[in-house]
């Protein structure tokens, strides 16, 4: 273990030097500049490296080519969900998208997320996304207080398995940008908010479960979903919002018949 460290450092230094001196390859990067109403793609030439993410490319442009480029990022390791953008017209988390994976003839096109208003360049206004998250009943309401004993949670229990399936959501809005139903109906709550609702509906520690079915069965609710599945295809964390929404459809239908029967 100890012996391997100097070798790795040496390799790293050699690679770095090669990157600095033999920068013959250049990426042609089109980046959206302006707002949604008024703007255009601007071409930047960015030095190519062996290991490079789309976020690295955007950061290089901001640091070395045009300091006025506006974009959003925080953790750089796929946890915070703030760096999502359209890469070659597909929604992606840019910090975990390797340039090689999306490059077409040394070219790549980077734009702001779809279905959300553009503030400037690559930064979109996420308010609508998070407002819908709350509107779907996504805010946690604890079922026990600080003084109460901690209830046991069985990870194998069927409802808990359903709840656990969606808890790794990082709210990056990629599913929201991928969804054609959101594009066609601005009132639709969208995959992320509905998946959150499904998670809380199955969470024994959530105290407002009865309200969730009302919140998701209204005008912009789960029944707008056409099961196109783009949310599930594009989710960077391999979650399955489409199946979560199908779960909400089943539960709201069951609730409807139960109410009529009772």
């Amino acid at each position, binding site marked *: 273990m100890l012996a391997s460290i100097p070798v790795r450092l040496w390799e790293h230094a050699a690679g770095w030097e090669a990157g600095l001196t033999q920068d013959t390859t250049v990426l042609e990067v089109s980046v959206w500049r302006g707002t949604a109403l008024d703007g255009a793609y601007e071409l930047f030439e960015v030095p190519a490296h062996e290991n490079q993410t789309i976020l690295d490319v955007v950061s290089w442009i901001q640091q070395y080519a045009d300091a006025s480029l506006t974009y959003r990022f925080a953790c750089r390791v796929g946890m915070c969900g703030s760096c999502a953008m359209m890469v070659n017209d597909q929604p992606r988390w840019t910090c975990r998208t390797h340039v090689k994976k999306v490059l077409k003839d040394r070219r790549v096109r980077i*734009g702001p997320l779809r279905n959300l208003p553009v503030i400037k360049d690559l930064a979109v206004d996420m308010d609508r996304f998070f407002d819908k998250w709350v509107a779907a009943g996504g805010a946690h309401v604890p079922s026990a207080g600080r003084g109460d004993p901690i209830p046991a949670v069985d990870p194998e229990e069927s409802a808990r398995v359903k709840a656990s399936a969606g808890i790794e959501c990082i709210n990056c809005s990629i599913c929201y940008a991928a969804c054609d139903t959101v594009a066609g109906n601005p009132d639709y709550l969208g995959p992320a908010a509905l998946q959150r609702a499904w998670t809380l509906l199955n969470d024994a520690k959530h105290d407002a479960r009865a309200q969730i079915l009302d919140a998701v069965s209204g005008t912009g609710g789960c029944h707008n979903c056409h*099961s196109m599945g783009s949310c599930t295809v594009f989710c960077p964390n391999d979650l399955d919002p489409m199946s979560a929404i199908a779960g909400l459809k*089943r539960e709201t239908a069951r609730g409807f018949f139960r109410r009529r029967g009772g």
Partner: protein
Amino acid sequence: MRPARAHPLWLAFVLHRTSGLALALFLPLHFWVLSLALTQPERLDAFLSFTEQPIVKLAEFGLVFLLAVHMFGGLRLMALEWLPWSAPQKTLAAGAVGIAVLISGTFFLQVV
């Protein structure tokens, strides 16, 4: 901007929608032709002899294709939304139905 949509679930959605639309356009025409039996029988006979053309046979194949695609698309959608099964379970079920249709279809063709 348009995200790439060439994934199977989206294509299945489009196929289901377009086949449904095409069938909806066909039905009024179909009923109108049937109504000729009561109103103008000689015109219906003329139309029926026209349907012997190979191009009409091809169109009939298209019609059966639309019906099959729409029916199985609808079954797929109902299984997707109403049966909380795992993906492999659904694949197995769809495979079983597919094979059953193939075998019974072959049997039916032999009988006919």
